[in-house]
């Protein structure tokens, strides 16, 4: 425990596993059969040093939000542990920005009440100062104080997302989980929000877990990036290392699939092949059926997490090793 106290890490996630019961049909109930369980997270471990941003990217449905929910304490893992510790040994104040801007705001509450909730809950301010803080936050996210008296349905998707960001910031978190915080925003507002998050991080030494599908955004924001595939972290790398020399074939192919601004070459490059079902995961490497460089041993044993260049990667033949 003592070593943990001194570690520079704010968050340590150790071997977290989570399965979901697939819905039980009446046939299952009748026959007393136990339905198969879907493996949503399978042995995820990583840590985030205080004051830095850990970016998490990966296939949609690979378990990023589930991981975020477990870290936030909204769900219990089947096994493994999550420890959050501030330098002074206390639990850090946490907030989360949710992926879906439509279900993350209570439609019966006015905007000022929504944003003020964490302020009241943590007794950060009182009286008139609350209202002032709400106005200030609204301006920070590019809305106006006049919006405070409206209800969520009066806003567009991106505006709601900004309200959700304002609410998270209102709690003055030391640790902020951002699940797709800017996917609903136009690039200009996105730039404004990302700059704001960076400024707050620099000023208050905040720690972020930043989940996104937007690889350009993760490059701007993250110090370290984890790439997930089917419930596992398959690569963890420093910001530039991932983009310059991706180690895992999935990471490499993912980077290729990003649509650039070239209007002439209009082909998109999806990764070919089907994602295996979480109920019937292959033995061996999870990416084998879609990997152009697959070998016999990939089907037999699961590659362990190992060092390759500047990355940790779950692959027998990492791509960056070939390059160098």
């Amino acid at each position, binding site marked *: 425990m003592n070593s943990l106290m001194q570690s520079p890490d704010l968050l340590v996630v150790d071997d977290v596993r989570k399965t979901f019961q697939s819905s039980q049909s009446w046939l299952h109930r009748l026959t007393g059969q136990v339905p198969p369980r879907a493996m949503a997270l399978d042995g995820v471990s990583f840590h985030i040093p205080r004051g830095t941003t850990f970016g998490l990217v990966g296939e949609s449905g690979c378990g990023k939000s589930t991981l975020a*929910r477990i870290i*936030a*304490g*909204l769900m219990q893992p089947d096994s493994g542990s999550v420890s959050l510790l501030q330098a002074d040994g206390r639990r850090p104040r*946490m*907030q*989360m920005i*949710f*992926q*879906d801007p439509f*279900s*993350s*705001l*209570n*439609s*019966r*509450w006015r905007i000022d009440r929504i944003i003020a*909730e*964490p302020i009241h*809950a*943590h007794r950060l301010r009182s009286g008139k100062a609350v*209202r*002032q803080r709400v*106005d*200030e936050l609204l301006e920070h996210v590019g809305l*106006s*104080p*006049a*919006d405070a*008296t*409206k*209800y969520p*349905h*009066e806003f567009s998707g991106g505006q709601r997302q900004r309200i*959700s960001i304002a*609410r998270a910031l209102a*709690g003055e978190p030391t640790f902020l989980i951002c699940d797709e915080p800017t996917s609903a925003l136009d690039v200009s507002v996105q730039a404004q929000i990302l700059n704001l998050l960076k400024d707050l991080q620099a000023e208050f030494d905040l720690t972020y877990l930043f989940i996104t599908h937007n690889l350009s955004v993760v490059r701007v924001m993250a110090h370290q990036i984890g790439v997930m595939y089917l419930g596992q972290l398959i690569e963890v790398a420093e910001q530039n290392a991932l983009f310059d020399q991706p180690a895992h074939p999935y990471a490499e192919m993912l980077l290729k699939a990003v649509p650039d601004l070239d209007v002439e070459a209009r082909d998109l490059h999806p990764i070919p092949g089907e994602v295996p079902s979480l109920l019937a995961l292959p033995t061996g490497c999870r990416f084998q059926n879609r990997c152009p460089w697959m070998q016999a041993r990939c089907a037999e044993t699961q590659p362990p997490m190992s060092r390759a260049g500047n990355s940790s990667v779950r692959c027998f033949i990492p791509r960056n090793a070939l390059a160098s």
Partner: protein
Amino acid sequence: MASPTTGAFRQPRFPLLAQLLRSPGSAAAAVVAIGLIAAAFLVPPLMAQDPFAPGGAAIWEAFTPPVWMDGGSSTYLLGTDNQGRDMVASMLFGLRTSLVVGFLAVGIGLVLGVTLGLVAGFVGGVVDAVIMRLADIQLAYPALLLAMIISGAAGTVTGPQRSVSAAITIVVVSIGVSFWVQYARTVRSSVLVERDQDYVAAARITGRSSVAIMFTHILPNVMGPVLVIATINLAIAIITEATLSFLGIGIPLTQPSLGTIIRNGNSYLQSGEWWIVVWPCLLLIVFVIAINVLGDWMRDALNPRLKRRG
């Protein structure tokens, strides 16, 4: 800093009212229902004489027919009953008692049902299973039968000589208790949907307690259907009270309620004094229909699916 709220738009202040006015049938129902409720609560206190107080009725004027019939008197527009009480006045007094019983019964059912439904949906697990099995068991008994059982059982405790207020309490509780299942089921299924929404997760992360989340976040989101049920239950409660009183196991004859008035008047239907029973029956029917129309309209008006997104 704080800039004025000019230029910004507002929600129409009374969106439901505006909507109601657009539907003439429901607007009429609302006028009837609210009018009757207002009359029942506002008029009796203003009357010089309580017809049910000892000596409050003019016994010598008993069986006066309505004003347009032979022997009718303009003092008693709808006639008088066997004790010489003005029908209009008795019905208002009766309706008032019925409404008090109805509102209290609905209140008991609502508080009980909503709380149990919230807890069942939000806590889940064993608690949920126990509450919902109880609900299933209770559903096997029709509301009226249940009310009869409860008031019967209470009767054996208090003995046949119970006071008026004890009788009313028993009626209120027995009707109220028979209502909770509906609320609990509706609330529970709404809670199951709301519970998984991210706004609840956000409140959890912020450290709000489960109780606070249940009452400040989830409750407002599930109140729509509850109000609809409450409205319709008001009608059911009044009918149940009337039925219980008519059967003689509800409110004693000394206390006016629509049920006791009808029970009293029923004896004179055969002998030609039809007005003593027909007016209160009509009042009951009109009021119940108005409430039901209003409830149906509310069901549509409060349905978020019918007023979705732009």
